[in-house]
C-alpha cells in the first residue's frame, strides 16, 4: 500500500469514526471536542514548527486573527457561512504569517519564542485598547450557517462538530503529506543541524518561512472555529497564556504523529473541565504537574508512543 493511500485511508477511517461518535456523544462532550479540535489545529501548526526545532510562543496571534475575522465578517458583512469564514480566516492569518515568517526565520530558540510572543502581545494590547471593537470585552459572534442551512440547539452543535472534524481530518492528512515531503523533511534536518542543510543547497530561511505560513493558516482555522463555537471573541485569544496552552498541547503530543495532537488536545480539555469541576482552585496545579510529568517521562511526547513502530521500521 502506497503512503498516499495509507494517509487517505487513515483520514477516511478517522472521519467515519467521528461521524459515529457524533451519534453517541452528549452535547457537552461534542462541544468539548469541537473546542479541543479547534485548539488542536493551532497546536498542529506548532508541531510543524517544532519539527524545525522552533517553538512559537505566539500562535495565539493567528488564533486571535482567525477569531476576529469571523467576528468582523459575521458582524459587518453578514457572511455567516462557516466554510467561507474558515477560508477567509485562514487566508488572513496566512497572509500575516507570510509577512512575519521571513522576519522570524532569522531567529532560533528562545529568541524565536520571545519574538513571536511579543508579536502576539502587541495584537493583544491593540485589541484591548480599541474600544470600537469591544476592547477587553470582545465581540459576540452570530451562529454560523452551513451552505444555507442554519441549525440551532443540538443540531448546531452537531453541525459544528462534523464540520470541525472534517477540517481536522483534512488538516491532518495535508500536514502528514507535507511532513513526509522533501520540504517537510528538511525541517527535521534543520532541527538536527541547519548548517548542513544549507550546504546541501536548501534555503533554511525559506523552509522555516513556509512552515510558519502553514502554522499561521492552521492557527487562523482554529480561531475561526473556536470563535463560532463559543459565539464570542475577546483579546484573551492573543494573550500569552493562550499561546502557552497550544505549546503545552504540542509538547504533550510531540512532533511525530499528527493524530496525537488532537488526542492531546482532548486530554487537555478533559483535564481542564474535570479539574475545574472537581478542584476549582487547583486545576492549574494539576495541569502543571501533568506537564512536568510528560516532559520528564516522555520527552518526545505521546506521539512517540503511537508511532513507535513506524520509527523502528525507519518511517518518519
Amino acid at each position, binding site marked *: 500500500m502506497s503512503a498516499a493511500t495509507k494517509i487517505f485511508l487513515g483520514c477516511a477511517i478517522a472521519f467515519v469514526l467521528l461521524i459515529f461518535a457524533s451519534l453517541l456523544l452528549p452535547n457537552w462532550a461534542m462541544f468539548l471536542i469541537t473546542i479541543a479540535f479547534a485548539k488542536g489545529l493551532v497546536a498542529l501548526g506548532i508541531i510543524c514548527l517544532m519539527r524545525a526545532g522552533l517553538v512559537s510562543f505566539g500562535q495565539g496571534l493567528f488564533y486571535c486573527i482567525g477569531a476576529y475575522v469571523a467576528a468582523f465578517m459575521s458582524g459587518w458583512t453578514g457572511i455567516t457561512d462557516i466554510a467561507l469564514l474558515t477560508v477567509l480566516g485562514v487566508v488572513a492569518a496566512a497572509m500575516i504569517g507570510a509577512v512575519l515568517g521571513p522576519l522570524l526565520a532569522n*531567529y532560533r530558540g528562545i*529568541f524565536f519564542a*520571545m519574538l513571536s510572543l511579543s508579536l502576539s502581545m502587541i495584537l*493583544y494590547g491593540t485589541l484591548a*485598547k480599541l474600544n470600537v471593537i469591544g476592547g477587553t470585552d470582545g465581540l459576540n459572534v452570530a451562529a454560523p450557517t452551513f451552505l444555507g442551512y442554519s441549525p440551532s440547539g443540538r443540531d448546531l452543535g452537531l453541525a459544528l462538530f462534523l464540520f470541525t472534524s472534517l477540517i481536522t481530518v483534512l488538516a491532518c492528512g495535508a500536514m502528514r503529506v507535507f511532513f513526509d515531503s522533501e520540504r517537510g523533511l528538511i525541517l527535521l534536518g534543520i532541527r538536527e543541524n541547519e548548517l548542513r542543510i544549507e550546504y546541501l543547497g536548501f534555503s533554511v530561511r525559506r523552509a522555516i518561512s513556509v512552515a510558519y505560513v502553514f502554522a499561521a493558516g492552521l492557527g487562523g482555522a482554529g480561531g475561526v472555529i473556536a470563535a463560532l463555537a463559543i459565539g464570542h471573541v475577546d483579546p484573551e485569544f492573543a494573550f500569552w497564556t493562550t499561546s502557552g496552552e497550544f505549546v503545552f498541547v504540542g509538547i504533550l503530543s510531540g512532533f511525530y504523529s499528527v493524530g496525537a495532537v488532537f488526542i492531546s488536545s482532548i486530554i487537555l480539555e478533559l483535564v481542564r473541565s474535570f479539574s475545574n469541576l472537581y478542584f476549582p482552585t487547583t486545576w492549574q*496545579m494539576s495541569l*502543571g*504537574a501533568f506537564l*512536568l510529568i510528560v516532559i*520528564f517521562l516522555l520527552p518526545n511526547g505521546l506521539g512517540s508512543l503511537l508511532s513507535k513502530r513506524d520509527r523502528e521500521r525507519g518511517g518518519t
Partner: protein
Amino acid sequence: MELLGFILVDGLIYGAWLFIVSVGLTLVFGVLNILNMAHGSLYAMGAYATASAVGAYFAFGGTSFEFGSYLVMVLAAIAVALIIGPLLERGLLRHFYGRDHVILVLVTYGVFLILEDVIKLIWGVTPLFVSEPYSLLGNIEIGPLYYVTYDFLVIAVSVIVGFAVWFWLNRTIQGKVILAVIHDREMSQTMGVNVNKVFMISFTLGVFLAALGGALTAPMISVSPGIGVNVIIVAFAVVIIGGLGSIEGAAIGAVFVGLARAASVHLLPEAELFIIYLVMAVVLVFRPEGLFQKTQARKI
C-alpha cells in the same frame, strides 16, 4: 520641556522597578541557562509574603516603630528565597539540566502553573493591602507635581541591588567562581568547584531578587491573584532587550523600556499596553540577540 521632565522621572521610576523584577531572571539565565517562567510567581510570592508579614507587624505593635516594616519586607523576601529556592532547584530543575532551552522554558511554565495555585491555596483569592510603607515617607514636590517618596526609594534600592550584584559577581571570590562556572562548567568542576552548590546559590539569589521585587511592589498595589502573570512577560522583555544573562544589559533594557512606557503614557496612552513588546520586537529585529549579547559562532 516640562513634559519631557515628567517622562524622564516616570520612566526612571518605572525602569527602576523593572530592573529589580528582572535582574534575578537574567542572573538565573546567566548561570543556570534557564529562562525561568516561574519568575513571575516568585515575584507574586514575595508580594504575598510581604503583605502578610507587614500586616502582622502592624497588628502586633509595629506602629510604635513604623520604619521597621521595611526590614520586615526584606526579611519576607529572604524567607521566600530560602524556602523556595533550594527546594525548586534541588528538587526539580536539576533533573532537567542539559535539555533544550525551550524545554526548560516549558518546565518552568509548569512550575508557574503550579505556583499560581499554591499561592491561591496559601493566601486565598481576596486581595491584600499593605499601604503603610508606601505612605510612610511622604511626598516630594517636583515642579507642579507631587511624587511619592517611596518611588524614589525604589530607584535607590534598584541602584543598590544592581551595584551589589555586579560587585558580587566581578569583585569577590565567590562571584569569580560563578563566572568560571558560566564560562566552562566542566573545567571548573575539575578545578574543584562545587557546581551544584553554585547553581543552588545562584538560583536562590535569583528567587530572592524576584521576591524582593514583589516585596517592594506589595505596598503600591492590591496584592491579588494574577499579579505574576503580567510581570513575567515584562521581565522577559527587559531581559531579552538587554541580552540574556547580562546584568548591565538588564539595567539598560529596564531604563529603555521604562522611558518608552512613560513616553507612551504621556503621549499616546492607547499604546501603553503593548509598547514594551513593540520595543522588544524592534530591538530584536535590529539586534537579534539583544543589545548586550556577544555573537556566538554557529556549530557545524
